[in-house]
């Protein structure tokens, strides 16, 4: 018999770890699954080990707290790192709400080169798969040296690589600040932070209004110390170089993000990010209802206890709306407690926790409203600008598809192939939807991660070796 856990948690970021810990403290038998070889999720995983020494204050605090939770969790729950989940299925029970007897099967691929399939079964599932970067296309964004903000964060791990680099940070949203501050502190020569949205300088950054004065002041101090200029209503609208990045065109923007005036800034690294896209393929596979977040992005819909529309399936963290690590952690805790209570354990209510989630979520909404992506970015593109890098689809091909009668993102994809390549539209999906004239839809990807045909074919044999090593 394969072991059936009480709860499987997918994602070992702040939300998943906090949720798993609460559930296991309450007495549930928990397994935590993450694709990455290290815990921490999008943010903590990428902080260099030397961060402690370098940086007192809010972030240090966050990381330390996360590591404490992680240590506590490790001794209580089963941990499966390096396990990519490519599909989840729910069997038994009834869609109307009966959870008795229902189980979720989580299909993973363990390991990197020598990956092997593995199925994990549980009575409840917490999805905490976070979000991924949301880039916007512009001429030259496919040059080596142009990174997403998340990519730049990953670079930080080896601070040696960063030192001496001439970096420009551009995009929109509060996370530009920690990225720029982190790079500056690690020795990079940060040539400027260009925030497309903010009309005001750092002194009136929305983080302040949202009650994050200490955090904002911390970043501002780092940027000031390193003499990093911060400009609102500016963005990198083109990147240049022969084989690798040598300089960028920075534009002053009008309220709709159309370029008003441009100049050139030399750099060898550009970190660019326009927010995040929640990873919804697993909840969509299960049929969980989605809703649109304040900025129009599809996210998983949950109730106050983080239950999705599918019985036995819960969601927390950025999959339910982008809002920062603190909110993700609080939501995760709430979810873990709800799962335990739903499974019949005694969990005393924690009204303070629910209030905290509400307060942080309101803050997240305020930030979304402060940093909308404005339509003028389309004016940055030229006919030959690649919209989809995997399939090398230029803007002109997207326009041709529209002329042929494609009126939504799916039909643009069918006629011109953006999103058909390796990343399956994770990078270009947002831009293609905007160019097709619609709000981005929740992704339908029945296969969430590439899986070898041999592994897919082998699934039918329930007693293959990999499943049997479960106690």
């Amino acid at each position, binding site marked *: 018999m394969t072991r059936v856990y009480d709860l499987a948690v997918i994602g070992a970021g702040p939300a998943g770890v906090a949720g798993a810990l609460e559930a296991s403290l309450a007495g549930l038998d928990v397994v935590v699954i993450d694709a990455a070889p290290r815990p921490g999720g999008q943010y903590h995983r990428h902080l260099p080990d030397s961060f402690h020494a370098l940086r007192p204050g809010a972030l240090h605090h966050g990381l330390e707290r996360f590591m404490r939770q992680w240590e506590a969790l490790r001794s209580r729950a089963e941990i499966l790192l390096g396990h990519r989940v490519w*599909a989840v*299925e729910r069997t038994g029970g009834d869609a109307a709400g009966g959870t008795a007897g229902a189980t979720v099967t989580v*299909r993973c691929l363990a390991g990197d080169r020598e990956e092997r399939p593995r199925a994990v079964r549980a009575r409840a599932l917490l999805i905490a798969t976070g979000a991924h970067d949301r880039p916007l296309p512009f001429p030259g964004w496919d040059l080596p040296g142009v990174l997403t903000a998340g990519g730049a964060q990953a670079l930080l791990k080896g601070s040696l690589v960063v030192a001496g680099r001439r970096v420009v940070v551009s995009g929109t949203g509060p996370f530009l600040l920690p990225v720029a501050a982190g790079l500056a502190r690690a020795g990079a020569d940060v040539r400027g932070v260009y925030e497309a949205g903010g009309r005001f300088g750092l002194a009136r950054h929305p983080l302040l209004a949202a009650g994050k004065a200490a955090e904002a002041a911390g970043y501002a101090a780092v940027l000031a110390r390193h003499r990093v200029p911060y400009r609102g209503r500016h963005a990198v609208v083109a990147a240049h170089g022969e084989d690798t990045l040598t300089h960028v065109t920075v534009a002053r923007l009008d309220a709709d993000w159309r370029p008003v005036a441009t100049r050139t800034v030399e750099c060898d690294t550009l970190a660019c990010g326009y927010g995040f896209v929640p990873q919804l393929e697993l909840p969509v*596979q299960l*049929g969980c209802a989605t809703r649109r977040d304040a900025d129009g992005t599809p996210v998983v819909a949950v109730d106050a206890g983080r239950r999705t529309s599918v019985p036995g399936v819960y969601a927390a963290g950025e999959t339910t709306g982008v809002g920062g690590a603190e909110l993700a952690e609080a939501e995760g805790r709430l979810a873990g407690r709800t799962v335990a209570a739903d499974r019949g354990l005694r969990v005393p209510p924690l009204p303070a926790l629910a209030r905290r989630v509400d307060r942080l979520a309101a803050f997240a909404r305020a930030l979304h409203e402060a940093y909308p992506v404005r339509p003028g970015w389309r004016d940055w593109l030229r006919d030959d600008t690649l919209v989809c890098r995997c*399939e090398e689809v230029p803007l002109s091909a997207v326009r041709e598809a529209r002329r*042929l*009668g*494609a*009126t*939504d993102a*799916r*039909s643009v994809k*069918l*006629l011109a*192939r953006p999103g*058909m*390549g*390796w990343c*399956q539209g994770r990078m270009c999906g947002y831009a293609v939807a905007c160019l097709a004239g619609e709000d981005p839809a929740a992704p*339908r*990807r*029945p*296969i969430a991660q*590439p*899986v*070898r*045909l*041999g592994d*897919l*074919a*082998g*699934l*039918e044999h329930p007693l293959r070796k990999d499943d049997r090593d479960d106690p």
Partner: protein
Amino acid sequence: MPDVVVIGAGVVGAACAHYAARAGLDVVVLDRGPVAGGTTGAGEGNVLVSDKEPGPELDLAVLSAGLWRELAGLGGFEYEPKGGLVVAEDDEVLAALTALAAGQGVEHTVVDAGRLTDYEPHLAPGFAGGVFYPQDAQVQPMLAAATLLREGGRGAGRGTLSLRTGVTVTGFLRDGERVTGVRTDRGDIPAGAVVNAAGTWGGEVAALAGVHLPILPRRGFILVTEPLDEPLVLHKVYTAAYVTNVASDSAGLETSAVVEGTPSGPVLIGASRERVGFDRTVSIPVLERLARQAVELFPALAARRVIRAYCGFRPYCPDHLPVIGEDPRAPGLYHACGHEGAGIGLAPATGHLIAQALTGARPGLDLDPFRPDRFDPDRSGTGTPAKEG
């Protein structure tokens, strides 16, 4: 007033509109979604003569295969006359396959076991032999539909062809029994004739005219691999079991993988057949069966990654034949739907025959087997009394 309104901008509607405009008629194509947004956007693009028993569907397929060859000259979409290889698991199956090929009367070569790898170097050993069909081809169905629509009205002596997306047909204009146009969510459009090319939704559209067409969805999943650096699969390759599956009436799951490479690099593996309504929930057991069958044909595929799977709903008629021609129960309404898993292959012939019917020309094929009222218990009956709108 247009001569013809075509409902549906899938490959079948596109072909009907294309040939009607070529015949000099002014055509308006309506679709509630975008071009090729229905089942055409979920199909694989096989143009097969190999998988059909002798009979009316094979006649249609052979006519269509020739028309696709000609239409490929328009450019704008991929057309690859790559040929299909059907392989037999054992001698008994091979004998049946060879007999079928002889009866079909289409160009083919019987391939014995030793020569299979001349056609497909990576094919698994152990097959008893096969039959190669050079006329089997591949089209990119979405671009093909878009191209047929764009090109239909271009050229001297042709009618006009215009496409209106985002328009839903909600009913019909009637003059007595006669259909004289459509009602839409964007207003009425009177027309000389109306073509129902609504694919899997053809039964619903017919019902708006008060006539019955028993078209049901038959779900199919397709797997798509990562792009391969070297072509592993050169033709369309499938096992003889596919032929029996296609013709089956079972509502249960049937899979028989058709494996082929594409010009852009990925290998396509399709497709399953099952009648589960319009349910999109992913079925892992279906995907694993397709994967297993593909690996059984080409063991080297085992190490290649699937990056995508998708599903669509074939327009299925109980007798596996499409509905083509004017509806005697609602004169002025022509049907061109219900092509199940072969609508891409059969689209040009369907469009060609519909255009002939619309212009009163003698049809190139006998349309009797495709008659819209053939499912009525009383074959000559006029169906339920037609309601206005």
